[in-house]
């Protein structure tokens, strides 16, 4: 028994014992809190069963910030290990586990849900819609992501973390290379949340195609919604490839098949191709919505229409198509031959063109605009130089022959963090600050925000600029320690200092949020930034049904137009009768179905076949239960709408 438990729980590392204790205490704390304040019913009714896109968005947001913390702690641990030569703070195995979980968590469990948070909170409001196309599916997507992330994180204390890198190349990730459950945690954690992501892609594509307010032609749609459209199309084509790839790896590990093994005729190189056919589009999936955010922010805070709207739309579409034709640039050195490498070098560089168009459009929008230096604008301004440098080093990496020199070196690490942090994280933070008042009805404190901004930004350059140099000095990625004789020590020490500065930036942000919850400036207008798009035409936070009257759109920047020409919601005269509003009912099925997936994934991870089958049977039962439900919606009566609108300070 004790032996069994020893194999099950991860033992032997004080860091992990510390985490065990922290987890148990947190869980107990939550349980006691909920019971003591009698909050179980509230939690269930208001959150766990909700199908309201705004609440789902907030749950995504909270989870992704927690994951940013976890991934960030991983990053700091790695940087601590690398700060000094011959360091034994972490051993090699532990280091492998940490860079694997850091990369996986940051991209799949931090960036993706952060993005989905913004999709959920903003898109229906920008479109003038009352919900997404499939609210039930939307809740299911969230819970699949959530339980997938939980399963992945569980590997930390139970069974052992995956250690084969964030993309898990075979043969290392095959049974022979990675025995034990760690790799299975990776497969099922990602697989389960990936199904949720795919469903979100379908959901928002249909929402955008079908639920725009009357008059909002596609070419009048706000650019953030356009970026979501581009991103969703990319999700729909990319994520099935991920599903297949992970499933095949599992088939190899579970049934002893030989698809990617080095023996039995298997072909590991095929895995590398497949995973990057998802992986490269994935980076555009996460960056396109950031581009959308920058467009909104730049135009709002320069008080100008965005420059080159059409070229913005086309460049996003071109990027999403081109993103499928670049995947080989991740393995120029693996012997595909000069012709193939040349093709992919050229396609990779070609993406720089539409991206450059966008950067110039943002600059032209700011040119002669009345710029106000709000927090969203600050992050947008910081993004531009950062992304330009990241793009330039990306083009350097795309030069196939030169890539033989810096492939998998710290030069690469510096490059992709520059685009992922400078492009994606800065963008989502800009979006967070921009839409925060819409979500919660108050603004975030400016002074603390500036501190966060500067520590993050200075920290960023201090952390990653030395790594370009380290790359040229021959330091390869994923090394866990090095000697004095390499001459890398000073650069690494500086880099670690920068990482800690970024950590301080994050602490400032948490402080900023907590401080502003108490002291934040309330937003009573619903339009604190003098915005241009429809989400600013309704109160903050938006009522359950978003729009009491569905708006009629006459031009792009619909809300700006209404304010200028005093029509629609901006006009006093508009006092139409209310009609009952059709809404979806809450449901507990998404939560239970995702929980069953968790059970199934857990069982298959440990090869407890019966647990796996029981979980899958639970999923099937939930599906049938849903299929047999007939009354899944209801009407909000007119009285209630009147009451709500009056309480929000609207003329009724």
């Amino acid at each position, binding site marked *: 028994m004790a032996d069994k438990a020893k194999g099950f729980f991860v033992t032997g590392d004080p860091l992990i014992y510390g985490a065990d204790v922290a987890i148990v205490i947190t869980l107990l704390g939550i349980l006691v809190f909920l019971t003591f304040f009698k909050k179980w019913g509230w939690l269930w009714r208001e959150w766990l069963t909700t199908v309201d896109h705004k609440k789902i968005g907030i749950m995504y947001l909270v989870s992704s910030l927690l994951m940013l913390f976890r991934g960030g702690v991983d990053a700091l641990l790695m940087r601590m290990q690398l700060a000094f030569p011959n360091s034994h703070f972490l051993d090699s195995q532990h280091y492998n586990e940490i860079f694997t979980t850091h990369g996986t968590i940051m991209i799949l469990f931090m960036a993706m849900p952060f993005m989905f948070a913004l999709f959920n909170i903003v898109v229906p409001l920008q479109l003038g819609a009352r919900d997404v196309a499939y609210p039930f599916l939307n809740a299911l997507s969230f819970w699949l992501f959530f339980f997938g992330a939980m399963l992945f994180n569980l590997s930390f204390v139970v069974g052992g973390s995956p250690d084969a890198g964030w993309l898990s190349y075979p043969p290392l990730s095959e049974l022979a290379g990675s025995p034990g459950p760690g790799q299975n945690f990776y497969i099922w954690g990602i697989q389960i949340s990936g199904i949720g992501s795919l469903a979100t892609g379908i959901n928002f594509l249909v929402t955008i195609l079908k639920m725009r307010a009357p008059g909002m032609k596609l070419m009048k749609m706000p650019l953030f919604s356009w970026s979501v459209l581009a991103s969703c199309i990319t999700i*729909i084509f990319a994520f099935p490839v991920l599903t297949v790839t992970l499933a095949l790896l599992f088939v190899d590990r579970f049934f002893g098949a030989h698809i990617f093994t080095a023996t039995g005729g*298997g072909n590991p190189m095929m895995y590398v191709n497949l995973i990057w056919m998802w992986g490269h589009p994935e980076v555009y999936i996460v960056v396109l919505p950031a581009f959308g955010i920058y467009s909104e922010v730049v135009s709002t805070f320069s008080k100008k229409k965005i420059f080159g709207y059409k070229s913005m739309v086309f460049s996003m579409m071109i990027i999403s198509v081109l993103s499928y034709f670049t995947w080989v640039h991740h393995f120029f050195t693996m012997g595909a031959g000069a012709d193939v490498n040349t093709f992919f070098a050229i396609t990779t560089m070609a993406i720089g063109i539409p991206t450059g168009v966008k950067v110039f459009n943002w600059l032209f929008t700011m040119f002669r605009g009345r710029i106000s230096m709000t927090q969203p604008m600050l992050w947008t301004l910081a993004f531009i130089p950062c992304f330009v440098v990241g793009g330039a080093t990306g083009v350097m990496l795309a030069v196939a022959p030169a890539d033989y020199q810096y492939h998998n070196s710290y030069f690469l690490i510096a490059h992709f963090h520059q685009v992922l942090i400078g492009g994606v994280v800065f963008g989502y933070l800009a979006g967070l600050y921009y839409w925060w008042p819409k979500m919660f009805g108050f603004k975030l404190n400016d002074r603390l925000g500036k501190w966060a901004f500067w520590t993050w930004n200075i920290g960023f350059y201090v952390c990653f600029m030395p790594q370009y140099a380290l790359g040229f000095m021959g330091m390869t990625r994923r090394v866990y320690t090095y000697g004095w004789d390499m001459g890398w020590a000073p650069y690494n020490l500086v880099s670690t200092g920068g990482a800690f500065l970024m950590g301080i930036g994050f602490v400032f942000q948490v402080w900023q949020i907590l401080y502003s919850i108490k002291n934040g400036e309330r937003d009573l207008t619903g339009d604190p930034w003098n915005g241009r798009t429809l989400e600013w035409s309704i109160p903050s936070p938006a009522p359950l049904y978003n729009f009491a009257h569905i708006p009629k759109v006459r031009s792009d920047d619909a809300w700006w137009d209404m304010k200028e020409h005093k029509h629609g919601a901006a006009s006093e005269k508009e006092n139409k009768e209310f009609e009952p509003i059709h809404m979806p009912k809450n449901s507990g099925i998404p939560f239970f179905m995702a929980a069953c997936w968790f059970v199934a994934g857990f069982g298959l991870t440990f090869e407890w076949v019966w647990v796996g089958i029981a979980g899958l049977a639970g999923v099937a039962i939930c599906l049938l239960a849903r299929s047999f439900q007939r009354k899944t919606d209801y009407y909000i009566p007119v009285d209630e709408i009147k009451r709500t609108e009056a309480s929000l300070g609207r003329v009724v």
Partner: protein
Amino acid sequence: MAQSVTSMDTRHEAHHDTFKLLGFWIFLVTDCIIFACLFAVYAVLRTHTDGDLTGHELFEVKGFTAETFILLASSFTSGLASLAMHKGNKKQLMAWLAVTVLLGMSFVGLEITEFAKMAAEGATISTNAFLSSFFTLVGTHGLHVTFGLIWMIGVMVQIGRHGIDHLTKEKVTIVGLYWHFLDVVWIFIFTVVYLLGVM
């Protein structure tokens, strides 16, 4: 009031119908991509027999031809079911769905026998890369069919309870679409795997 709500009801449900269908088409696109990847993997690995059994030695023309005809027939009967539904004939609809389910079951039965026979000859998923990719590709299709059967039975129960109304109509349409899709995928399996395999 009651009047106006019902009229609104139908308007609302009408647009939700087109939503569901559009979403389902997009889902089918993603499923197509899944099969396309599995076909690609099979195409790469079909010659990787590691010195062991090949398709030529394993596939039996009689078996897979029978499977093909049965599945094609079931696609036809599911089409007849939807015709009956549009005529509003509940009995006929149920009957054709039942025939479709039976044909589907015999397809799955034949496939299982085929797999069992191969396993008895020592050709399992872990024998070599060719067989690994074969079993995953054809097996994924088989799992899809099985899933479709459970789904179709579920829809039949609902028709039995509620008759033909707009909800059950939508469900029959969607499950029918799914069934035809599986048929199309099978045509590819038939050609790429079996016909090229025995040649």
